[in-house]
């Protein structure tokens, strides 16, 4: 699955990461001890997308959420969502279902 696989593809976060807003920072912690890099910092936008990914969501739906809440163009928001999805996939932090178009 890549960022080019949009359309009907839906994403949802896995439970192998823990999110916490801690003293003003959005932290994502990898569960299981042997992962070399246990801790990631999210931007506020990334944290919002992470929360949204508690339920299945498409790139389009995630983009709409950003456009609704931030002063950002749909094109820029979609690119940010794609980049974020790519990063989460590389961390094996999300799962995907559905057909790419």
């Amino acid at each position, binding site marked *: 699955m890549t960022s080019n696989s949009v359309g009907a593809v839906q994403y949802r976060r896995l439970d192998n990461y823990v999110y916490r807003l801690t003293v003003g920072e959005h932290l994502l*912690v990898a569960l299981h001890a042997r992962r070399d890099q246990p801790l990631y910092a999210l931007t506020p936008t990334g944290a919002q997308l992470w929360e949204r990914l508690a339920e299945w969501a498409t790139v389009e739906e995630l983009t709409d959420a950003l456009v609704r809440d931030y002063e950002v163009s749909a094109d820029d928001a979609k690119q940010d969502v794609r980049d974020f999805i790519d990063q989460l996939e590389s961390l094996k932090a999300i799962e995907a279902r559905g057909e790419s178009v």
Partner: protein
Amino acid sequence: MTILPRGVGFATGRVNYAGAVSLRFGQLVIAFRAKDGVTAFNIDETHAPFVVPTETPADLELTCSVAALDVPEGPVTASGASSWDLRRDAEGGEDIVFRGGPNYGTDVWHLRLDPSFRTGTLTEAPLMPNRAIRADGYPLLEYVVARLLARHDGALIHASTAIVDGRAYVFVGHSRAGKSTMAAIAEAAGAQIPTDDRTILTIRDGRPMAWGTPWHGSLIRKTPDGAPIEKLYLLQQAQIDRKEPLSQAHAVKELFVRLIQPRLHGMEVQRTLEILERIAQKVPMARLHFRPTPAAFDLAVGGE
């Protein structure tokens, strides 16, 4: 002077306790009880200072025996390199098999923790001639303490601790950061050193506390002593001694990545981060750029 260069040490003896033994780490008490009431427990004498009376209320009670291991079946939830495998059941109970011997090739202990993590069973394979249960077995005991701390408002971290005038100065760092070096300098300056490698952090009566542990490092006589934390330092060897304050968020992250605790349960991670937040909000943390000299310790304790 009780600190020796890394890799140099005295062979220590073993101590037996008939039928039961309880150990305290920070504010956490773990009770080992023989299933048959008579089987002995055996610990290294370096752990003897951590023994408390068996009637002390325990946070975890383990019913223990020596028997062939009945290793559970089913998929492994998580593994610690080659030294242990964990299986979690649907109710939240856990079975952990710890291995030992050459290349961790032998199943030695089977620990069963009930979902509450307040009771469990420990079975040791009949490998030792005296059939005593090694309550301090590695990595069994350190693993149990680390997991329980995460559920009891505590954390286990790579850090040495120096107690001066009843206040703890905690020196955090990965291996070779200078934890034992700073501990040796502090001890020479008259500080009490409960640990030079692994410190327990807790909150007691709203105050962040640091406690000694028996594990690792070069210090021969570690102690369970604890004290309110005055300062937290992240060690960084340098050519000039100076302190660089860290923000609370930075402090939490630096502390978190130096924890010993396995990140096996989301709730434990959440609670651990919460404890680190509370500590960082109450205790200033700085990066201590230091040369291995008494002046660096003086700077840590009071100087600017």
